[in-house]
């Protein structure tokens, strides 16, 4: 048991460190985030530039500091929207079944099949550009996967003894769902959230490929990573540091979920 909490501790430390780093990055960075210096392009990491510079001579360290914020924001909001709506929809449909279940699950199928790029294009053309619209579009895209997971769990628990007992004891359906069933889906949900977080970071990056993500010159880790692809041979640090940063963020987050899971055991 103690061993499990080490996950939580490590995860919390990592996430806290990243958060502090990120929060500082919103107010102060060693160099202005978007300042270019053509005489210092593609510099390897050194004392002046801890993570080197990119092709436009911008300080990668400063951009990573600042870009983490955007990445955090997008990923957390996306997962929150997906998980919140996904849980409610999955729980209700799984519990009640019937025609309601059928309809909602078909809508789910539609969402799962509808190309995310097309959906993002629609959001942008209807609501206009901006990070909030991208988050909304991504969040909606994340609903089905959460809904499906919760639904399958609920279907499973529904037929179990303790739920049947609760029903016999006259508990209301809502109470059964939210008091007895949902807490039991926590394990799957935390795992799904960690995965979702990863996917959200990447989705934001691939959206920017089509000009739909965070607009340049503002940095986000995903976009820095995709920009860095073309410089992987002569400026690998440009890909490496944002990449590592994403790994750390996601790792910290999944360790926390792991630790929480263990605490609940």
């Amino acid at each position, binding site marked *: 048991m103690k061993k499990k909490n080490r996950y939580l501790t490590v995860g919390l430390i990592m996430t806290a460190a990243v958060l502090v780093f990120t929060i500082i990055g919103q107010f102060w960075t060693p160099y202005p985030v978007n300042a270019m210096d053509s005489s210092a392009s593609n510099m390897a990491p050194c004392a002046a530039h801890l993570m080197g510079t990119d092709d436009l001579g911008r300080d990668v360290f400063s951009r990573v500091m600042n870009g983490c914020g955007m990445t955090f924001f997008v990923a957390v909001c996306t997962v929150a929207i997906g998980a919140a709506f996904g849980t409610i929809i999955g729980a209700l449909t799984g519990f009640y079944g019937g025609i309601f279940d059928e309809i909602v699950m078909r809508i789910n199928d539609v969402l799962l099949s509808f190309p995310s790029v097309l959906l993002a294009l629609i959001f942008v053309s209807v609501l206009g550009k901006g990070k909030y619209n991208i988050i909304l579009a991504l969040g909606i895209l994340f609903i089905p996967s959460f809904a499906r997971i919760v639904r399958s769990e609920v279907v499973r628990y529904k037929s179990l003894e303790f739920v049947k007992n609760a029903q016999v004891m006259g508990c209301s359906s809502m109470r059964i769902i939210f008091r007895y069933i949902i807490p039991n889906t926590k394990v799957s949900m935390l795992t799904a959230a960690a995965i979702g977080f990863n996917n959200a970071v990447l989705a934001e990056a691939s959206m920017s490929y089509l000009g739909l993500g965070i*607009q340049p010159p503002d940095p986000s880790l995903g976009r820095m990573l995709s920009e860095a692809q073309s410089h992987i041979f*002569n400026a690998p640090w440009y890909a490496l540091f944002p990449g590592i940063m994403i790994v750390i963020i996601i790792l910290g987050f999944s360790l926390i979920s792991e630790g929480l899971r263990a605490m609940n055991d």
Partner: protein
Amino acid sequence: MSDSSDHSALVFGLTQEISSVDPHEDTDAATRSVLFNVFEGLVKPTTDGEVEPAVAQDYTVSDDMTEYTFTLRDGITFHDGNPVTAEDVKYSLERSAGIDGDQSALSAISDISTPDDSTVVITLSAPDSEFIYNLTTAILEEANDAQQADNPIGTGPFKLTEFEEGQYLTLEKYDGYWNKDLDYIDEVQVKFVADADEAFMELQSGSIDCLQYLTKDQISSVGDDYNIITTTMMLVHGLFLNNDYEPLQNKEVRQALNYAVDRDAINEMFADGKGMIVQTHGYPRITAWYNKDTEGTYTYDPDKAKELLADAGYADGFDLEITVPSNFTQHVTTAEMIAENLKAVGINATINSVDWNTWLSETYQNRNYQATVIGFDISSLSPATWYKRYYSTSDNDMTNFASTEYDSLYDQAQQTTDNDTKKDLYGQMQQILTDDAASVFIQDPGDFIALNKRFTGLKTYPVSALDFSSVQYAN
């Protein structure tokens, strides 16, 4: 790596897909540059931006510039071995004109007659000394009419043997090519690669032999297996301004922008300064029409820019949104650099990156933008087509530039048949574009091409053309 006896196909990496091989339908620069090898017109472009006889042996133009008479090349054949006849020429020009519609360059033809099998007489409805440039239109075989789009047959140095959508197309040397003096490689595979990064990876792994549009960073890590050819992209690359957007209606503001942008830094950033700085809508490599006097008009001078802004009543700057198509990384990066330049003189520049089709319909067609970074290539060697972009009532006056002086010079240029007068008129028009600061013209960007050392040659053209018939095996 290179094997001295390796005569396998040259694999050319194209970072764009070719979606149609019908030469009369061709639309983008990449498609034109590849089909250049398969099809020829009565005349074809030369490396200095002029034209020379191709399917035609020679031609004469009547003094009034309305009648063009072509004698077809003796013994010239299509890739299936059939001789090219005057009827095929007539058919091809009519087919192309039909596809392009009534505003195309070929619509100026009033009559095509074929007195005999090897003579074609083209009559124009009005005199036009630039018309010859439009006759690079591909000559196709009439007997193949039903299959032009699937299995096109041309007269060029290579025949198209395979076309796999989204993947590659294969060109094979045509042994019956009329120009027997040319010695060139047997086979070329043009491979469509999703993007420049991936293409560069494939170049490094050896599955691509030749790749264009390399960055200066890439050429430094490309390795010993490749020779680097330095040229330019043949674009007018710039920050194009919507002259109808309120602050940009003011000439002084546009001039301020011209002083604020650091062209040399952009050139340096992309191509180590190998690009050619321009200050007008012109192509320095086509010396016949280019007005060199426009160069150096605007130097990089932020103070002067601030002064001009203050004079124009924008001492506190204004908001400027720069729209940029997100699939062109070079344009996005340029926009980022320009945004920094403009912020330095107090203009609040933001970037709006959009997908290519949104750019085409919203920015280009609907002119719903403030400023945009783009590069204009040339689809025709005829300067009239380039300068129509700034004619006030033109469909493609994307910048909403309007100058009565410019319009009247353009009209005069169309009426004159004397090339010297014409050059002078086009020169004056270019000067107006510079003086009125129609947009912020930046450069003809430098371009690096990597070619595996198994091959030598590869001529570069001022038009979109990849002349594989100029490539030989190194051993």
